């Protein structure tokens, strides 16, 4: 925290899998205490960026800075206490219960001689309650629905109790009510607890409504970043997603609302409305 920059940032990152380069010269900053949302078409490198920011993927050039220090040089445990990651896909071990899986989020706070403190117990219970999976505590994760499972993984990430939290598509698999519930939870974490959140979302309207800072990516590059009300325009959506659309005000919140253009010929003739 010695510098004035944000706690988490990536500078001039080259991200690659073996010889396949996904991004070059990628620079991103996650404003402190923001709810940053990353949007972009499939395969543009959103998950790859989150992997790099969480040190799961080592950049082939450039560096990720956590509190001003190159994250590669920070002890793994300290990173894990500062920054949590909900990967896009994880595997639940065979035969594990919800409570046991959520408890694994406590790993960075534990040690050989300190395997289960009262604090661990409390945080796990709270995390399950916050995500609404407390009633599932003793169920096997294998036997849950996709949406229930997703909320269990979110609970695990919460149990890690990190000031920075990276969530890769936390709302995938969820029905509309649970999507909003998870996003409200994120907003609360950000507003009430002052945590910094980075989430990858596919729903632009959710992104525009919840994000305090939006990063729009395409082909491994940041096309635009800033507050949604300033950057979400029809031109930007067209540029990033190749989708013709109109952007209007969300009647609920006044944030930008993206309405995809109608298929040609599908526009209802004027005055035909019953």
């Amino acid at each position, binding site marked *: 925290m010695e510098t004035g920059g944000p706690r988490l940032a990536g500078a001039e990152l080259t991200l690659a899998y073996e010889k396949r380069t996904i991004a070059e010269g990628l620079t991103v900053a996650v404003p402190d205490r923001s709810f940053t949302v990353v949007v972009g078409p499939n395969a543009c490198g959103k998950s790859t960026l989150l992997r790099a920011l969480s040190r799961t993927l080592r950049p082939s050039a450039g560096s990720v800075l956590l509190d001003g220090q190159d994250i590669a040089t920070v002890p793994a445990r300290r990173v*894990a206490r500062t920054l949590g990651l909900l990967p896009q896909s994880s595997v639940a071990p065979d035969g594990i219960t919800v409570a046991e899986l959520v408890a694994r989020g406590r790993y960075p706070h534990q040690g050989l001689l300190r395997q289960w403190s009262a604090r661990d117990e409390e945080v796990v219970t709270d995390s399950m309650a916050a995500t609404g999976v407390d009633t599932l505590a003793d169920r096997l994760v294998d036997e849950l629905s996709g949406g229930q499972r997703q909320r269990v993984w979110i609970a695990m990430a919460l149990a890690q109790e990190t000031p920075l939290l990276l969530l890769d598509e936390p709302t995938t698999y969820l029905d509309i009510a649970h999507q909003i519930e998870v996003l409200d939870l994120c907003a609360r974490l950000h507003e009430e607890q002052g945590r910094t959140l980075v989430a990858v979302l596919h729903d632009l309207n959710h992104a525009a409504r919840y994000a305090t800072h939006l990063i729009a990516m395409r082909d491994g590059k940041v096309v635009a970043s800033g507050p949604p009300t300033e950057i979400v325009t029809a031109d930007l959506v067209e540029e990033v997603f190749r989708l013709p659309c109109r952007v209007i005000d969300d009647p609920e919140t006044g944030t930008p609302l993206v309405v995809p253009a109608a298929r040609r010929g599908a526009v209802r003739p004027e005055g035909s409305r019953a």
Partner: protein
Amino acid sequence: MSSTLRIGASVSVRYRPRALLVGAAAALLALAVGVLALGSGDYPMSTSDVLRTLTGGGSPAEDFIVNDLRLPRVVTALLVGAALALAGALFQSLVRNPLGSPDILGFTQGAGAGALLVVLAGGSSLALAGGAIAGGVATGAAIYALAWRQGVQGSRLVLVGIGSAAVLTGINGYLLTRAQLMDAARAMLWLTGSLDGRGWRDAVPLLIALAVLGPAVLLGGGRALRMLEMGDDAAGGLGIRVERVRLALLACAVLLASLAAAAAGPVNFVALTAPQLAKRLTRAPGPNLLAAMCTGAALLVTADHLAQHAFAGHQLPVGVVTGVLGGGYLVWLLATERRAGRM
């Protein structure tokens, strides 16, 4: 499910009563069969006589029979069983597949090739053991290198391993045809896995390896292994140095499997079955390293006892017994995994 043992405010240890119970029961069973085996043979002895002799109170003849002739074999059986089971539990957890065991992934075949080369060169038993270790470790390194693609994925390791096992089985067959008749017989016996005539020489290296690697893996590796089971990204996010931990644990597993093979030959299926058996008995998720080790020791010492005494007048190599039992188990496993849609 889990219980917590607390000492003061700062020490808390989590354990599963059921897993501890299974481990303790398996360990007791292993020791009981061991004592039974010490009393069995051409000169039968009662349990109390065996125990008296073990504690130094036997006649010189009894002392010779129990402590010099039979004890090394029983101890070797216990150690080989424990080492194979630990190696198997590590592999299965690391590759997230119940079929991931050293005898299926080619490490055992690699140890076999190393041993056969020594036999062909006319080496001593000690050199044969060395050849087995070298072969196993070299195979481990080769498989790791072949499976490496910016990190090693479990499924790749399984595929490369199964391929290597097939290639090495072919090579071993070829080496056998090149061996002299006498050598070939000796090599065949070794390749089946046998505890015949095992002395302290065979047990000690394994004992040292288990004494050093065992606690390191159980204490240091067990918890990290649990995190790794959730996928590399999730484990990395929790602060595990994924590649480093995986490489270290793989190296331990390869070393244990190779040392076990050096001591008793490639005894098949123990590494495959013991961890799974322990898992079903403990009903706990994740690797149950300690319970698996105790189960492996019990399994092998029992199999060896059966091999020696179940068929009057016929002593079988222990590998035959574990092969038949484990093969049956493998068929069952494949059938149930298929039904569960996991294969």
